[in-house]
C-alpha cells in the first residue's frame, strides 16, 4: 500500500462520495457541493502524482491545481448566482421542478 496508492484511493473515495451526492440529492445547492467535492478529488490526484511522480521540479501538478482551484471558485460563484435567480422565479431549489424552459 504505497503512499501514492493510498492518496489515489482517498481521492477516488472522495470522487465517488461527491458523485453520490450529485446523483442522490434533489436540492440544487447539495448538487453544487457534490461537484466541489469531485473537483477537490481531482486536485488531490494532481498533487499526489506531482509528489510521487517522475519530474516534480517541473511543478506542472502544482500549477494545474492552482488554475483548477481558480476555475472551481469561479464556477461555484456562477452556479450559486444561477441558483439564487432560479429561486427568485420558482421559489424552490428542488431540481425536479426546474424542468420547464419558460422564462
Amino acid at each position, binding site marked *: 500500500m504505497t503512499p501514492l496508492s493510498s492518496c489515489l484511493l482517498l481521492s477516488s473515495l472522495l470522487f465517488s462520495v461527491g458523485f453520490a451526492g450529485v446523483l442522490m440529492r434533489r436540492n440544487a445547492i447539495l448538487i453544487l457541493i457534490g461537484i*466541489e467535492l469531485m473537483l477537490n478529488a481531482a486536485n488531490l490526484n494532481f498533487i499526489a502524482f506531482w509528489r510521487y511522480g517522475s519530474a516534480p521540479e517541473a511543478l506542472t501538478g502544482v500549477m494545474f491545481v492552482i488554475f483548477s482551484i481558480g476555475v472551481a471558485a469561479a464556477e461555484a460563484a456562477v452556479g450559486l448566482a444561477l441558483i439564487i435567480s432560479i429561486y427568485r422565479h420558482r421559489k424552490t431549489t428542488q431540481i425536479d421542478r426546474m424542468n420547464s424552459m419558460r422564462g
Partner: protein
Amino acid sequence: MLFTIFAALTVAGAVAAISLRNLVHSVLSLILAFAGLAAVYLLLGAQFIGFAQILVYVGAVAILIVFTILLTRNDGTFGHSSQASWNLGALIVIAVFGTLAWAIHSSTALHHAPPPQPEATMQQIGTALMVRFALPLEVIGLLLTAALIGAATIALHEKQERP
C-alpha cells in the same frame, strides 16, 4: 499515520456533507472536508496549495454557499429523492468506486520506491507562473473577472426587477 487521520477526517466530512438533512450542517461538514484536504496537501509538501485551498474554499466558497442557503428559503420539502432512485444511485456509485479501486490496485506504475520530497518553494512557483505559465495566468485572470461580473449581474439583475 497522520495521513490516515486526515484522510478519515476528509471522508467523514464529505459523507456528512451529502447526507445531513439540515443544509447548514452539511455546509459546515463540507468545510471540515476542505480543511482535512488542505492538511493532506500540507503533508504532501505542497504548502502553497494547502494554504490556497483554505483561503479559497474554506474562506470564500463555503461562505458563498452559506449565503445562498440563507437567501433561498428552502420550503421544507427537500431531502432524499424517492427511495428507488436512491438505491440506483448507490449502485452506480459503488460500481464507479469499484472500478477505480481495481485500477489503482492492479496498475504496475506505482510500485517503485517513493522519490525524495520535492521542493516547491514560493520562489519556484512564482517564477514558474511568470515564465512557463504566463499565458494561463492571464487567461485565468480574464476568466475570474468574467465569472465575477456574470455572477453579480445574474443575482443583482433580479433585485431591481422586484416591485
